[in-house]
């Protein structure tokens, strides 16, 4: 069955729930959400007002779920949603929304606009309106196993490199391990030093862990494009692997939306609670720190700040762990003016980075981050999401700031300062940052 307008509308009817009805009912058109959205603040174009991005779904709600709307529909007074509108709204919903959730934090009447956009995308994709880039990434995720087309051999190569570098074994498919570590394809392809980093940290902390050859990819393009059906398929792979390996925990890596997909949406997508727990790498590292199993040596000598990945912090609830961890290794750790749950998005979340069409506006929206960083005098911008990391690096480069500010992954920074017990190799291991 192919996508169609009718299918999209039916999907919305199925997706609209009590919170959404309440949100639409409550909206007073105050427009404050616009100020929370970097696509509006950096362009000044009113069409980027978050609540406006939901107009077609709002009309479906009105026509299908309200007494007066139904009456008007029956009498032929209501304006049906059209293909043209969906075409017009597609870029608003996909190119200029990163699902960052900032609008949901400022709406005075309490509308969780991000929650609505997530459902808005369900109908959009079912109607056949989704960006080519994101469709291609979803296609690769389903058919190949990774949005970037990463296959097992690529991972195996990186494992081999990490083993060579650390002198430690990187466990793969080890049944009965406590933790199943997932990775994002960006980590495998661009930031593979994370593999060495976690290998060394887990070795020091004596964490029983493994990678899985059948489920190494944590990202979920299905969720980004807005299809719960496809998102469920991707989550199912991880669930199957975790169950086969009988792990107690699945570690969500430094990737924002992967955490949301696995931790919060996952059980609802596959339709049952997991027999294992999902823990974010930052949560685990913070636990190890608290238990004294993670010890560090020395401090960063430069000023550092932390970019909160939206899906991990604001939409994920992991606010304090990254700060606890950073304070272990950075003496001059400063916060951006708006940070934590009110941080500004990098501009590339929610599938925007996979959508080439969105490149111009995404790069424009990066001005927000640039302004945030201005005058802070930071030499290192630490983050905990490989997508953020990509976006930040690219944005800094666009603005010729890449000479001044280095973007670093938090786990890697910790690994650099890992206090090594006597049995392992001596000297500080500095992983080579790959550009």
């Amino acid at each position, binding site marked *: 069955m192919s996508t169609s307008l009718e299918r999209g509308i039916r999907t919305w009817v199925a997706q609209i729930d009590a919170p959404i009805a309440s949100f639409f009912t409550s909206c007073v058109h105050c427009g404050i959400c616009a100020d929370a959205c970097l696509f509006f603040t950096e362009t000044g174009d009113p069409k980027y007002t978050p609540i406006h991005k939901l107009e077609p779904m709002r009309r479906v709600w009105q026509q299908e779920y309200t007494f007066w709307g139904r009456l008007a529909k029956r009498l032929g007074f209501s304006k049906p949603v059209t293909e043209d509108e969906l075409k017009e709204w597609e870029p608003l919903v996909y190119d200029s929304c990163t699902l960052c959730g900032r609008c949901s934090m400022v709406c005075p009447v309490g509308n969780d606009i991000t929650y609505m956009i997530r459902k808005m995308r369900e109908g959009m994709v079912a109607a*056949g309106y989704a960006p080519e880039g994101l*469709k291609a990434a979803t296609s690769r995720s389903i058919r190949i196993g990774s949005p970037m087309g990463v296959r097992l051999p690529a991972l195996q190569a990186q494992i081999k490199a990490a083993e060579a570098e650390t002198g430690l074994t990187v466990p793969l498919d080890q049944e009965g391990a406590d933790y199943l570590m997932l990775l994002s394809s960006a980590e495998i392809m661009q930031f593979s030093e994370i593999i060495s980093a976690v290998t060394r940290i887990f070795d020091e902390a004596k964490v029983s862990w493994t990678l899985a050859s059948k489920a190494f990819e944590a990202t979920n393009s299905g969720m980004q494009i807005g299809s719960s059906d496809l998102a469920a398929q991707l989550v199912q792979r991880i669930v199957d692997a975790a169950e086969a390996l009988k792990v107690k925990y699945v570690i969500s890596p430094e990737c924002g939306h992967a955490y949301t997909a696995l931790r919060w949406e996952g059980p609802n997508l596959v339709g049952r609670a997991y027999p294992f727990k999902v823990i974010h790498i930052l949560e685990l590292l913070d636990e190890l720190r608290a238990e004294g199993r993670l010890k560090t040596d020395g401090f960063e000598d430069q000023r550092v700040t932390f970019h909160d990945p939206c899906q991990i912090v604001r939409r994920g609830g992991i606010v304090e762990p990254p700060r606890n961890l950073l304070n272990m290794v950075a003496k001059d750790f400063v916060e951006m003016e708006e940070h934590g749950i009110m941080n500004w998005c990098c501009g590339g979340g929610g599938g925007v980075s996979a959508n080439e069409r969105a490149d111009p506006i995404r790069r424009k929206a990066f001005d927000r981050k640039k302004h945030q960083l201005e005058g802070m005098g930071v030499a290192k911008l630490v983050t905990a999401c490989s997508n953020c990391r990509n976006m930040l690096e690219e944005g800094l480069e666009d603005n010729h700031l890449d000479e001044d500010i280095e973007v670093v992954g938090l786990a890697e920074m910790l690994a650099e300062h890992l206090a090594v017990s006597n049995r392992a190799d001596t000297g500080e291991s500095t992983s080579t940052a790959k550009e």
Partner: protein
Amino acid sequence: MKDTRTVGEILSSQGISRRGFLKFCAATASMMAMPPSMVPAVAQALSNARRPSVIWLSFQECTGCTESLTRSHSPTLEGLLFDSISLDYHHTLQVAAGSAAEEAREHAMQENDGSYLVVVDGSIPLGNPGYSTIAGISNVDMLKETAAGAAAIVAVGTCAAFGGIPHANPNPTGAVAVSDIIKDKPIINVSGCPPIPIVITGVLAHYLTFGKVPELDDLGRPTAFFGQTIHDRCYRRPFYDKGLFAETFDDEGAQQGWCLYKLGCKGPVTYNACAVSKWNSGTSFPIQSGHGCFGCSEPDFWDSGGFYRPLSATTADVGTLAGVAALAGAAAGAAIGRMNRSHRARAQARHEKLTIDDIEES
């Protein structure tokens, strides 16, 4: 029978001095908001006016109006002015009775056709003519018959002006005001239950002075007396403006003379001269004696939600209504809510899994 003396001659024959007469004229002129320069003109006009023939019809009434106008205090200039008119017919006051009384009325009507004044107190029952009759003539017939040759009609008291207490719910007699029946004559409504004596004399004085009906408000009342509300001229108004209200009739606020709004005073919506002219020779008026205004000079004052209920309060019972409304809302909401729920469930049931092929094709 017909007295052709002027008002001035009658007054002086009764021992009223020129000075006393001028005082009355000045008081009347000031009550009617005329400039002081008008006083001599009023005096002149009144002195020279022929005493008019007045026929007083009392219908469904309590005689309170007559009491107010004639017996409130004596001797008064107001009372004397009544003496100076030719009150040719008045149930309560006339000596004649029975057919003689009716003859007097008919005689006055014939002799003064087109120039006599009709004063009415009491409302007129339309429900059944037998509810109130005089000499076998129903009120409505007598009013029509008498009004036919009148120069003007003065409806004295709220009953005659607006139906008053007989008109109050459920209005068993079908009582109506004079103006509901007579449409072709000037009618001056001097409302109040009872009306203030000087208001009626003022109206008569005005009529005698100028030979015409005074300026009236939209309820037919002379604006000179009914142009402002009790509240506008109330000496307790500063307390209202400060938000100082008596809560009960004997609390500290009541003793301090605070505003009686919360005790149901209708002063803000009642047009009358009580606060200015007061009663009993200017002694006091209801608010001054510690009781809120009833609003007796207003239409339907008896049915305006209770004398002790503040003006801003809702007059209807809403407790049961609120409960019923909540239940009705809940029932309707539950019904449509269930429809919504199943609408959603159906859409979910009809959902066909989106496949990667679907997306790739799109």
